[in-house]
């Protein structure tokens, strides 16, 4: 099982995440898909770190996690507030602004 496999796996995860963002309606799920994309990046970083024999990649992964966590906080807050108003977490319902 070479490093390439990890990279490919990461790419696949990233794609899954991206597609998920496109196909899922529930804001939470969409957001989780984005998290998935971030984590696929983490996998990539770590893999490259391993390949390069340095620790940078791994350190970066930690950075990413922290940032992701912050994102979660902000994101959930926003989603919550709109959910409490609309009683729905579907991103398609939020559709007043257009054209």
């Amino acid at each position: 099982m070479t490093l390439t496999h990890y990279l490919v796996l990461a790419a696949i995860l990233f794609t899954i995440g991206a597609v998920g963002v496109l196909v899922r309606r529930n804001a939470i799920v969409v957001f989780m898909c984005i998290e998935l994309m971030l984590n696929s990046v983490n996998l990539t970083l770590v893999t490259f770190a391993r390949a390069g024999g340095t620790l940078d990649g791994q350190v970066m992964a930690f950075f990413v996690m922290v940032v992701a966590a912050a994102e979660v906080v902000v994101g959930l807050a926003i989603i919550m507030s709109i959910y409490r108003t609309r009683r729905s977490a579907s991103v398609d319902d939020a559709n007043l602004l257009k054209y």
Partner: protein
Amino acid sequence: MIEAPDLSLAALAPLLFVFGAACLGVLVEAFGPRERRHAVQVTLALVGTLGGLVTSLLLAGEREVTAAGALAVDGPAVFLQATITGLGALAILLFAERSLDPARSAFVAAAAVPVGSPRDRELMTAPRVQTEVYPLATFAIGGMMLFVAANDLLIMFVALEVLSLPLYLISGLARRRRLLSQEAAVKYFLLGAFASAFFLYGLALVYGATGSIGLADIRAATTESGSDVLLVLGLALLIVGLMFKASVAPFHAWTPDVYQGAPTPVTAFMAACTKVAAFGAILRLLYVAFGTSEWTWRPLVYGIAIISMVVGAVLALTQTDLKRMLAYSSIAHAGFLLTGVIGLSPDGGGSGLAATMFYLLAYGLTTVGAFAVLTLVRDGDGEASHLSQWAGLARRSPLTAAVMALFLLALAGIPLTSGFTGKFAVFRAAIEDGAWPLVVVAVLASAVAAFFYLRVIVLMYFSEPAEDGPTVAVPGLPTTIVLAVTVTATLVLGIAPGAVLDIAEQAAIFVG
């Protein structure tokens, strides 16, 4: 025993100032007495931003890489940091305006309260106001300053998030039309996160390709190893992430919705500062990291510039909401800015960098001013941003109309306004680089753009006012200051831009 990385505090002073103010703001939010909070927060934010402005001005001419090569404090960084802090301070002033809305603020009293609930209705008119916006905004400003100074991709990413997350939040904090505001927040957040994921993946790929994330190292790597697929893909994804922030077509889709939904002061803040920051990062990425493999991305930027100008100008033609129209116009302006980016020779010299930076400054000031005027024209439920409501404004309030007309003419790029100087600078840079077809497209696009700016003037001056038209509120001190500053700047940069152009010229060297 690990020796601490070299850290020239002097060079970081602006950042420290702003972030310090932001952190203090959080503490105040937590422990400060509610009734005095607003005043304190405003002062803090202003002190922070202005302090950042002053210090970055003092740093002029500084050229060093510090923080273990993570930060580059060079001409462009300092110039753009000054620009950001300055514009940021103006935006903060707009935030702090309390005399316009009978509800005493543009921001919701309690974001957590569901829209339309009884509590919400009672809070609507309560004197209570939100004060978290000030530390949030200050953090965003800090993030932007970091963004333009970031000398490695990871810092760039972190800065990206630091500037984005607060923006997501404050764009949802409108006091009126909360539904729109919240929707804007959600859209901005989801798409922003999506975009940063792309940026991040790009970062990873570049790291994989070059084994490093320092821009200098990447430059070195690309120069000797040329560019393999990983690197190119990485570059592509990085560009996507940045173009999204700069709201360049085809990554512009969020711009109109968010600009329209967010509270107008926040829109002003985003339109001005975010653009500056994003372009700062773009310039740095393209010219420090990928300057030597310029030929790879040049055609791409060329094309994106055209798309952005055309899409922005054409789409704005049929808008009926002023905020939305300005949003589309900002997309078109992003295109014009890219013509400046094109006009930058590989070594980072050429007049392109200075031109782009000048354009950013001029555009930022004008935009803040335009949105500030927007906040003055109100009817029963907040700002009257629908075009038809502006009919005959010149009769009601000649001064307001005149100021708005000035900003619109500047955005249209009529001589003797800052907009013209900026356009001239970037077009010149592009033609010097032989990109005259791009410039021809640009001038035609700006002709189209001129139409919708003119239409507003026509409405304000040549149409009869509607009887139940909006009222023009008397601006309080903060807004007055903002308008005074922006009007003066728009005229000065149009009539006697020499000095500022000089500064931009001298600042226009990256430390590689």
